[in-house]
């Protein structure tokens, strides 16, 4: 399609160059049965996938290669190798490689196990069967997935998974449409429509794969899920272009389509799904970064100790008058010179003291994190019944970062709010229709059994609903109950359908309809026409697909008994409508409102003749409705909400094909509009349009829907008369009002096109469509060209309710010292409203509003606000909390290099910041700037594709698996199912993981240093010769087995404060920010303590055994035992709660130590040649002095730490200690104390606001006192508004 005269020569060469990037494929069928060398597509890989990293034979070398990419492993292997150099060896080299081998083997085992799982899953996938066309049998035959090749023709039936990337050639659908579900690819559960290659004439009933002789050219495989291009060259040299719309990607499921046949274009690893497969990204936690610095300190310490050893050895050798008896020459028979010996000694010392750098630390930390994640994912509080989902940890190595968050960046829609849209208000031709009933169906304490009742007795329900409507409605609750089934079926949940029509508007519509013969608007009444157009726009200007395939849907419903079909809800609504319609005397013309299964495909219109049968048809039709429900599958919840709203007013979307849309109008007229073009939504234009041809009048109309400012700008202001101007102004006023109420606003407009204008445009459009380069830009350009000079139809306000417990969670996070930023694409008014509702801002707060286009103004606002802010946040001054609201444009300016410092300074003073109308890119920029400039831990939480950047930019990314697909979840480190889970995730798990892991890491450093230093001190008594007085095996086992389990258990299971207390006192979270966590200070304290303890552990036995006939290994074994007790009891001081597991591991370690040592020294006569441990332990344990040494050493070593802990806990208890005291109290008294504590900490303000929050449940009741609504439109540079103080800046 992109060849030919249209192109200049330059373009032609370019296109030829492009052909190099193309792949030319032909069908395999003519070559069937030929040997492989004759196959045209033999160069392409097969469809078998192999996700395993290793093969059976090369597992060991490959895994080792992989593991040696870790620096720590290289270090230890280097040391082990160094040990093989005779001049410097410290241990028997064969034994010294044991620890590193164990480490490598453990990791290899883990990798091997994972790989094995992958292998099995691969094998299962590769052996799944599919149907491939075979020429021999002239039909489709069963083949394994792995045998599918490029060029094959594959047939896929409904609900089957697509085996390879297929180019769609034929479907059983007459229009050549195939629906697929891409949940496994991008997580989106809504149906996507795919089309047969446009222009390819295969839709006649007899598609014969054998006759497919075209050449297919496709681009080289890439990982872009939304891009695919190529062309088919037919036998008559015609080129037919196609895009992503014709691709059935591997792994997706065919829905709603009986059969689809496709040509295999990519197989195996070249498919989109496989190209997109990459493992979880590796993030390094802050704790680990700090730890690495400390490891570096350890290296420095180690080197200085080795230097001391080397120098000491040299000096010692120098001090000897002559060669003494005990100085053994090397194997070459003579002594090395003293400096050389010193040099050798340096290396020997490195080997000897190598565990100074904790070899097991990294492996242990990994294990601990796995344990922590196990507990996080198993938390029943973080489980969501509705979606049957647990919290998922996708990044396995940063759970402790959750406990150290300073800034939380949150998306609004779908994160704070439910993203389940309810049609709330609309404004048509400047008149506002408030839909009060909908608004009132708010939050109500849940009533169980509601749904069942509802199912059985629709009449009763209706009554009760009517009875309760003024206060409650309960519909919201019901949605929750059924949501699990419906949630998956995209946006067809009952909530959106449950619109109660506004009486006035309904009358208006029906009245208008009375004047209108329904057949194409031949007679026109301006006003009515606008109403019709408005609803028509609501109905058709979208990409909603009507799905009638009940079977496909039903399979996915988990609890069918609880399931309430949308149809039934509609029925309820319809019955309500009756009440109104009776008043309107329009009963007779009302009939088509009821669902009708009559789905004839005739175009044009007809009058339904049902007439007054309506009333008694209700019950019967509603039952049928349940079985053949009409699901609206939309890409965004707004669209679904609008379609459902229109449906209530009688405008029902009946069917949509690529080229037509069938709508039933209020009076039973069915119109089949021809869809000439759809200008899809894109984030730049922020609007979408549909170009239709009226079936009767043949008029070409474009309906546009979009964000208010993008549509308002495109109105034909110039040729508006006063009345129209008034309409526009009042619509704008309504829009602002909606936004202030926290509603999503959308504007609708139309444009009538002349035939010629459309034709001209259409040509350009075709050209753009055919373009292979910068197609996107061209398409957008054409869209913008058309979308101008619009006529305003009206506006809608859609409500997005706050999620459950959001205010509570926000309050808790605030008390926890976390600053919350909300980054939203919405208008400032909407954002502020939501912020008030979710307690991000209090009524008393000082709110600084920044919205300007001028940089100088921006700067002055910043300066003024800073001054103001500093005044309010002076220490000791009980000032107000500050909130900052900033607009996208202004944010851009504020983030420029000269203002960014000021902006951040201001932001730091603010308790919460709202960034409105920001793009995804801005979101991530903000996160990055805050993270890098302020050097704080950031967390981003979001649910949509627009949050992906932000989630990836933050230290911790949390995805909410909500309504907008799974991209956010895929990019995130943790995924939760609703915002309220943040509370427990951060306050409890974050705190626990952080404190556990930091304590464990510190302990590991301490442990190794304490133990290794024993060897170091010994060097002073053995002429710095690098002797180890502890048997090498015991030395290795000590770290590897005797003292490894308790700290790991400690890291996984210790619990300083209970979950209840942590949730009750969010401010305990701050301890993670402050000293309690891992810091260099605690590290150095631990090091000092370690040095002290090792001195004690060495010198008390030394002084005791000094001058006796004790032999070297007995001496070492006593020290070994002493340090075991010392190290374990040190841990005992640190352990906060002793569960059975702790007892078992602690006592088990001691038992293991004694068993192993006793058995070893009883059996090892000459098993480990140079060392001589035989019977040492037994001998020693028969002497009472050994026990006396053990007791006194342990007491002296631990006394300082113990005393310090006792004194600090008594004299200056940290909040955590006080919280632990609280836990011991009686629940009732505890409650009292917690209240008082919070009251004190949060100040009177905090306490009060918390109370208020519990009282005020309904967010919409909180009305903002912001006074900028009216002037906002006219004065965009309005800068700052203060709530109470009204200081103009």
């Amino acid at each position, binding site marked *: 399609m992109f060849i030919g005269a249209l192109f200049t020569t330059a373009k032609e060469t370019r296109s030829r160059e492009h052909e190099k990037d193309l792949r030319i494929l032909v069908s395999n069928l003519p070559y069937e049965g030929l040997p492989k060398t004759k196959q045209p597509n033999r160069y392409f890989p097969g469809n078998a996938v192999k996700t395993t990293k290793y093969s059976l034979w090369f597992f060991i070398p490959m895994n080792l290669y992989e593991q040696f990419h870790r620096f720590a492993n290289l270090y230890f292997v280097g040391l082990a190798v160094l040990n093989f150099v005779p001049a410097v060896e410290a241990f028997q080299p064969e034994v010294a490689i044991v620890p590193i081998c164990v480490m490598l083997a453990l990791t290899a085992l883990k990798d091997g196990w994972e790989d094995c799982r*992958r292998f099995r*899953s691969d094998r*299962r996938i590769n052996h799944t069967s599919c149907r491939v066309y075979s020429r021999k049998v002239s039909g489709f035959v069963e083949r394994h997935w792995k045998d599918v090749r490029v060029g094959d023709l594959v047939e896929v039936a409904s609900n089957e*998974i697509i085996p390879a990337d297929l180019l769609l050639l034929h479907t059983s659908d007459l229009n050549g449409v195939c629906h697929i579900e891409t949940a*496994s*690819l991008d997580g989106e559960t809504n149906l996507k429509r795919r089309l047969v290659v446009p222009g390819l004439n295969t839709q006649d009933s007899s598609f014969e794969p054998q006759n497919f002789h075209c050449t297919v050219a496709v681009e080289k495989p890439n990982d872009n899920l939304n891009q695919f291009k190529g062309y088919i060259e037919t036998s008559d040299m015609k080129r037919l272009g196609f895009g992503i719309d014709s691709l059935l990607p591997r792994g997706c*499921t065919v829905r709603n389509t009986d059969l689809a046949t496709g040509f295999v274009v990519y197989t195996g690893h070249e498919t*989109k799904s*496989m190209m*997109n497969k990459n*493992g979880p990204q590796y993030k390094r936690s802050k704790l680990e970064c700090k730890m690495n610095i400390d490891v570096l300190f350890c290296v420095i310490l180690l080197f200085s100790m080795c230097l001391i050893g080397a120098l000491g050895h040299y000096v010692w050798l120098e001090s*000897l*008058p002559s060669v*003494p*008896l*005990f*100085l053994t020459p090397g*194997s070459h028979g003579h002594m090395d010179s003293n400096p050389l010996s010193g040099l050798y000694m340096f290396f*020997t010392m490195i080997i000897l003291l190598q565990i100074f750098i904790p070899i097991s630390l990294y492996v242990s930390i990994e294990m601990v994190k796995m344990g922590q994640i196990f*507990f996080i994912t*198993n938390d*029943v509080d973080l*489980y969501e019944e509705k979606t049957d989902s647990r919290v998922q940890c996708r990044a396995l190595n940063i759970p402790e970062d959750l406990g150290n968050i300073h800034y939380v960046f949150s998306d609004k829609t779908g994160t704070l709010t439910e993203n389940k849209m309810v049609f709330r208000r609309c404004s048509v031709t400047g008149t506002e229709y408030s839909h009060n009933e909908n608004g009132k169906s708010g939050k109500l304490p849940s009533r169980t059994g509601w749904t069942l009742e509802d199912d059985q007795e629709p009449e009763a329900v209706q009554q009760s609903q009517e009875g309760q409507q003024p206060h409650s409605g309960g519909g919201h609750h019901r949605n929750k109950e059924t949501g699990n089934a419906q949630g998956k079926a995209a946006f067809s949940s009952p909530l959106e359908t449950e619109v109660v029509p506004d009486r006035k508007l309904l009358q208006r519509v029906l009245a208008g309809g009375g004047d209108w013969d329904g057949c194409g608007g031949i007679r026109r009444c301006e006003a009515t026409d606008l109403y019709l157009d408005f609803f028509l726009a609501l109905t058709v200007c979208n990409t909603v697909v009507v799905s009638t395939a009940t079977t496909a849907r039903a*399979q996915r*419903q*988990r609890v069918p008994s609880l399931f309430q079909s949308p149809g039934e809800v509609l029925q309820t609504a319809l019955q309500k409508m009756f009440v109104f319609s009776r008043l309107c005397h329009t009963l007779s013309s009302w009939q088509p409102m009821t669902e009708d299964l009559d789905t004839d495909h005739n175009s044009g219109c007809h009058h339904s003749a049902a007439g007054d049968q309506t009333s008694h048809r209700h019950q019967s039709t509603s039952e049928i409705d349940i079985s053949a429900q009409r699901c609206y599958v939309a890409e965004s919840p707004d669209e679904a909400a609008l379609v459902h709203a229109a449906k209530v007013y009688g405008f029902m979307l009946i069917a949509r094909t690529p080229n037509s849309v069938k709508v039933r109008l209020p009076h039973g007229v069915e119109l089949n509009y021809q869809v000439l073009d759809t200008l899809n939504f894109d984030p730049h234009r922020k609007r979408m349009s549909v170009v239709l041809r009226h079936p009767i009048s043949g008029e070409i109309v474009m309906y546009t829907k979009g964000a208010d400012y993008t549509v308002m700008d495109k109105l034909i202001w110039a040729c508006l008369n006063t009345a129209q101007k008034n309409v526009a102004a009042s619509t704008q006023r309504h829009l602002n009002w909606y936004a202030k109420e926290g509603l999503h606003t959308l504007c609708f407009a139309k444009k009538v096109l002349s035939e010629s204008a459309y034709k001209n445009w259409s040509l350009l459009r075709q050209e753009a469509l055919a373009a292979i380069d910068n197609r996107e830009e061209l398409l957008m350009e054409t869209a913008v060209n058309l979308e101008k000079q619009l006529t305003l139809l009206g506006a809608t306000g859609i409500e997005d309710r706050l999620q459950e417990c959001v205010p509570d969670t926000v309050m808790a996070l605030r008390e926890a010292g976390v600053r919350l930023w909300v980054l939203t694409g919405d208008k400032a008014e909407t954002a502020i409203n939501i912020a008030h509702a979710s307690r991000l801002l209090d009524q008393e707060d000082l709110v600084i509003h920044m919205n300007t286009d001028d940089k100088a103004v921006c700067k002055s606002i910043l300066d003024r606000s800073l001054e103001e802010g500093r005044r309010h946040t002076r220490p000791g001054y009980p000032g107000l909390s500050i909130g900052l609201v900033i607009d996208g444009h202004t944010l851009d300016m504020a983030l420029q290099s000269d203002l960014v410092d000021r902006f951040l300074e201001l932001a730091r003073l603010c308790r919460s910041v709202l960034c409105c109308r920001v793009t995804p890119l801005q979101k991530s920029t903000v996160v990055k700037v805050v993270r890098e400039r302020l050097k704080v831990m950031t967390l981003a939480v979001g649910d949509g594709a627009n949050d992906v950047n932000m989630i990836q930019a933050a230290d911790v990314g949390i995805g909410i698996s909500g309504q907008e697909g799974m991209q956010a979840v895929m990019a995130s480190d943790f995924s939760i199912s609703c915002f309220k889970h943040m509370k427990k995730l951060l306050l409890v798990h974050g705190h*626990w993981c952080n404190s556990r892991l930091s304590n464990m890491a510190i302990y590991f450093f301490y442990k190794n240093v304490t133990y290794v230093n024993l060897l170091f001190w010994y060097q002073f008594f*053995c*002429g710095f*010769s690098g*002797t180890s007085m502890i048997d090498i095996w015991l030395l290795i086992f000590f770290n590897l087995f005797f003292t490894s389990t308790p700290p790991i258990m400690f890291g996984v*299971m210790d619990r300083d404060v209970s979950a209840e207390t942590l949730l009750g006192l969010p401010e305990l979270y701050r301890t993670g920010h402050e000293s309690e966590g891992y810091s260099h200070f605690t590290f150095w304290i631990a090091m000092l303590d370690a040095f002290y303890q090792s001195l004690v552990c060495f010198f008390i036995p030394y*002084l*005791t*055994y*000094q*001058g*006796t006939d*004790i032999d*070297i290994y*007995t001496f*070492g074994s006593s020290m070994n035992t002493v340090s075991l007790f010392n190290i374990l009891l040190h841990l005992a001081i640190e352990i906060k709660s*002793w*569960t059975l597991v702790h007892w078992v591991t602690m006592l088990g370690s001691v038992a293991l130590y004694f068993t192993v040592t006793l058995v070893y020294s009883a059996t090892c*006569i000459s098993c480990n040649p*140079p060392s001589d441990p*035989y019977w040492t332990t037994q*001998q020693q344990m028969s002497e009472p*002095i050994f026990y006396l040494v053990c007791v*006194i050493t342990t*007491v002296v070593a631990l*006394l300082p730490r*113990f*005393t310090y802990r*006792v*004194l600090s806990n*008594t004299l200056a208890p940290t909040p955590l200690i006080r919280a*632990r005291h609280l836990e011991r109290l009686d629940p009732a008294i505890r409650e009292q104390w917690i209240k008082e*504590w919070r009251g*004190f900490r949060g100040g009177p303000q905090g306490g009060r606001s918390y109370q208020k929050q519990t009282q005020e449940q309904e967010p919409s009741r909180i009305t903002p006192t912001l006074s900028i609504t009216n002037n906002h439109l006219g004065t965009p540079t309005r800068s700052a508004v203060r709530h109470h103080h009204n200081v103009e800046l």
Partner: protein
Amino acid sequence: MMASSYNAKEEDGNPSSATVHGGAGTVKNKKPDNTAFKQQRLPAWQPILTAGTVLPAFFVIGLIFIPIGIGLFVTSNNIKEFEACLYSVYSKYSFSSLSTLQIDYTGVDLSSPCFNCSQNYIWNSTTPCTCSVPFSLDQPFESNVFMYYGLSNFYQNHRRYVKSRDDSQLNGDLSSLKNPSKECEPYRTSENKPIAPCGAIANSLFNDTLDLYYIDPNGSRTAIPLVKKGIAWWTDKHVKFRNPAGNNLTVVFQGTSKPVNWRKPVYELDPSDSDNNGFINEDFIVWMRTAALPTFRKLYRIIQKKPNNMSPTLPRGQYILDVTYNYPVRSFEGRKRMILSTISWMGGKNPFLGIAYITVGSVCFFLGIVLLIIHHKYGNRNNNADIPN
């Protein structure tokens, strides 16, 4: 990234089956088990270390440690241990309850009887140098007396030295006898014959001979019987060290060479007693158990209590220590000592442990008192009031 969910789902075990076979029943509920373990609610003992809770511990430690310390100290003090500088023996020592005696016979000083011998550096000199060191005991040794030799500044714990041995050879392994371990280098072979026992430790075997004579008031010398068996660990003597199989040690050790510093081969260490000859010679075994610290003593002989005789093992009076001075220590500024001691149950004399116990006990007691005061002042606040002021 996105497709990883595709894989994850399949790994979870419901790839296509869940969708193909469908049905509500097959979907597994992912709800975590509500068990105490998984919900981290295991019953736990949660001690809080505060003055109030640990008070008793401090007092208990204090009350236990102080008596132990006093006991140890008294016991240790009862083991009197003295170092005798030999040139002034007669005048200097006149103690009661003398239980340990150390005599430095290195011969550093000119006045020392062994000065001449100490100047002699030759290991293998055929004419042994002897010297006699007189000393006196003011108090008799009542029970068994253990005779040690002590070396100072002798680094038996040097890394290369410690390794330089072949335990298999010492355990009687014939192949190791003929082909000693590499670790023994450079004391592995001598004159192309394997050394038995090989290695630096064996090579540097302590080879002074010490004899003790009692000087009767009439001036005659009575040799004190020194028992040379039972000085090594039983397990070493009977399990770890073994002679190679064979009746005649001379034949067994044929083809091996004696260590270079030795004057006689290993099978002639104690020709008088075949059970104490070869590798199982106890002096040799004791030497082979390398000392932990550069100043050490090793058991040399036992002077047994005379049976059914009320007279002390070593009565008070004049003694002479006859030394066959072979072992050169001047090369490393070492010292050699002879030690007589009646070993108490805690080894030698060592007041350190007693003092340590007393000190630590007192400190704990003191801390206990401090904590009591603190607890009295602040403790109540902790128990109930948590509101900081």
